[in-house]
């Protein structure tokens, strides 16, 4: 028996082990967490007490949504799981949009939420919400922790589930009393879950058929999606593309996964994709989907999508194959392994006629725009961001026109340099994601391309960039409109601009709030109030010097560009339409 007197603490009851709150820190450290984004509250006080001397950085965001988007941006920029921590009730419900954003795009992150004590659950306690119920449809998995004894293993499982298979967000909901409980349980070295088997055995028959289809094709096309970046298989895809001389188009999520300056690159496919990419989809006789999921923004009208092609769909997620488009061959497995195994079975080919056709489309229909007299064109701004940065930047976007212009007029050549909410289409994502990305990639130039609508949805997070001296550059393309919605109203609703005017002049009668006109808020004052450098530009010749100054300063900058108010994104294939109905006012 131990002689307690020697410790000098004889009167204290011996409490072996660690508290649940300490287990959270241990689990994060074990998972390699280097930065935790979060916001405190009553139900996570015990965890914050341990964060006080934790061996990783804690970043206090200004809204829980910002915390999740930062963790998300960090994960997209680095490939490592993002980590965030919020309190119960409103803290947790504020994460829902961020979780759904990450879920739709398959981004690994673990979100810890505080919960009221176990015996209070279901009592409508203060700041109680059924977080497990609310987050179930927007997470890959979620856990309610019932005892500190199971906490270390749950955290290890959470990171395992978040980062394996098709990645996704995982919520760990920890009641306040569990944070205080003592346990001797420790984080396991290895996680085993009998029902969760992310490793897929590739069927050799499928591989053989796949190779044969490539060898038999005369007009093959690779259609690369975000899964290519997740799998880290960019190099392998390029190898296959070059061996069999197959052109490559990419989804929005895959920008950068195949270098856009490569002769085989057709660039982005889909509603606002390049003419060449969409024509190639329409004309190819073999379409190989590598980590893409036939989103409706890519396919348009399903029945006429790639109508002349045999379709091969490679996906780690079995439920993705045949979900929206019938695949003639489904190859279920990890993209790295599939590409690695199939390339040796593929014969080199020239596909001269096809390559000639594709080259002609590329030549004839590059992304282009027509200038408007006396107006600053948003496309020009993006081109200059590309030029001034030398094409070396991590670009995050909001959603809508700014996102599409950023996709079209910058050329992405490296994976994890284009960060955007593709599936959910979350406005307010760009700024916090840019901050998260910069935390993960300190040596990169991080640029957020946003609009005057989206940036207002999480503007408060600019403080975080300034506080942490992050040299992010936020470029606001201000057209005074919710531009993409306005574009749809222009094209499909007879220009009845309803609910899209951020400036106050010209609004429908029931939206008018004052007749003075003018634009609020003043983004320059706002940026300066948050401690950032700011500049407003209105003319093309101001763009390059402003960007140069901002990029070279290594400080937080906001550059507001007053752009052509009614510039549209073209080409555009109207929703649910065939490529033949493409609107292209640039040629």
């Amino acid at each position: 028996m131990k002689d307690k007197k020697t410790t000098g603490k004889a009167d204290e009851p011996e409490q072996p082990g660690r508290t649940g709150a300490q287990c959270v820190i241990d689990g994060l450290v074990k998972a390699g967490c280097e930065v935790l984004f979060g916001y405190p509250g009553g139900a996570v006080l015990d965890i914050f007490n341990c964060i006080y001397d934790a061996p990783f950085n804690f970043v206090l965001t200004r809204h829980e949504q910002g915390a999740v988007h930062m963790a998300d941006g960090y994960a997209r920029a680095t490939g490592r799981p993002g980590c965030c921590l919020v309190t119960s009730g409103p803290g947790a419900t504020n994460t829902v949009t961020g979780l759904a954003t990450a879920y739709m795009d398959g981004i690994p992150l673990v979100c810890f939420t505080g919960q009221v004590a176990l015996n209070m659950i279901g009592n409508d306690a203060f700041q109680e919400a059924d977080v497990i119920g609310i987050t179930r449809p927007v997470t890959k998995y979620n856990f309610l922790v019932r005892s500190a004894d199971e906490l270390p293993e749950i955290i290890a499982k959470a990171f395992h589930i978040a980062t394996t298979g098709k990645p996704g967000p995982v919520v760990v909901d920890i009641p306040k009393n569990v944070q205080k409980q003592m346990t001797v349980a420790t984080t396991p070295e290895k996680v085993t879950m009998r029902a969760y088997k992310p490793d897929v055995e590739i069927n050799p028959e499928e591989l053989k058929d796949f190779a044969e289809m490539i060898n038999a094709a005369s007009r093959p096309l690779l259609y690369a999606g975000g899964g290519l970046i997740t799998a880290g298989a960019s190099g392998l895809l390029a190898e296959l593309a070059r061996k069999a001389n197959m052109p490559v188009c990419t989804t929005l999520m895959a920008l950068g996964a195949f270098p856009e300056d490569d002769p085989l690159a057709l660039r982005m496919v889909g509603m606002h994709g390049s003419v060449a990419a969409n024509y190639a989809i329409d004309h190819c006789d073999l379409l190989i989907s590598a980590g893409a999921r036939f989103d409706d923004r890519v396919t348009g009208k399903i029945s006429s999508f790639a109508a002349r092609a045999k379709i091969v769909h490679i996906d780690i997620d079995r439920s993705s194959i045949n979900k929206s488009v019938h695949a003639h061959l489904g190859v279920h497995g990890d993209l790295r392994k599939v590409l690695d195994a199939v390339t040796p079975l593929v014969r080199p080919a020239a596909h001269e006629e096809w390559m000639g056709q594709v080259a002609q489309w590329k030549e004839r229909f590059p992304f282009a725009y027509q200038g408007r007299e006396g107006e600053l064109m948003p496309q020009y701004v993006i081109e200059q961001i590309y030029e001034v940065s030398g094409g070396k930047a991590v670009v995050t976007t909001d959603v809508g026109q700014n996102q599409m212009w950023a996709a079209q007029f910058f050329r992405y050549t490296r994976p994890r340099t284009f960060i955007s909410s593709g599936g959910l289409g979350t406005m307010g994502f760009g700024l916090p994601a840019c901050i998260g990305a910069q935390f993960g990639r300190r040596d990169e130039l991080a640029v957020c391309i946003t609009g005057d609508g989206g940036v207002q949805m999480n503007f408060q997070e600019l403080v975080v960039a300034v506080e942490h001296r992050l040299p992010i550059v936020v470029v606001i393309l201000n057209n005074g409109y919710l531009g993409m919605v306005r574009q749809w109203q222009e094209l499909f609703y007879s220009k009845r601009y309803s609910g899209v005017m951020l400036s106050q002049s010209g609004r429908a009668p029931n939206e008018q709030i004052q007749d003075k006109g003018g634009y609020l808020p003043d983004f320059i004052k706002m940026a300066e109030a948050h401690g950032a450098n700011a500049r407003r530009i209105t003319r093309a010749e101001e763009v390059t010097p402003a960007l140069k100054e901002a990029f070279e300063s290594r400080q937080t900058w906001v550059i507001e560009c007053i752009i052509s108010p009614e510039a549209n994104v073209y080409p555009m294939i109207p929703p649910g339409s065939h490529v033949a109905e493409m609107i292209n006012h640039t040629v």
Partner: protein
Amino acid sequence: MKHIINCLVENQPGVLARIVGLISGRGYNIETLNVGPTADPTVSKMTIVVPGDANIIAQVTHQLSKQPDVIEVVNMTNRRHLDRELILLRVAAANHHDRAEIVDLAALFMARVVGVQTESVTIQMAGNQETVADFLRLLKPYKLIDISRSGVIAVGRD
């Protein structure tokens, strides 16, 4: 067509909600759902009857399979199996004549009369989906006071 899907899941809180939410959240219908323990106390078996074409059923099966709580998913409809549903029903039998007919009918379906009241009889009946439907159709002329159905359960055969 209706499909009977057997799903072995971790016997843990929240799993039922997850499975039901998954199916309803994607717009599929659940016709019946039955959950019970298995020989292994850590595993529960869910039997889900889902109407839909082959594509819908394939989607449901794949979506279920990828859940971290789901150990195995088997579409029983595609293989040799036995399925049964248990129904308890109370039928009005106001006079001796009606009662005799109902009891006869029950006997033909190997259903048991488990309760007799002055103006009704209570019947327990088990059968596959077809037999249950036939039995209920033949009972149409009588007034059904109440019915409880267990939902389909199924077991594979060699």
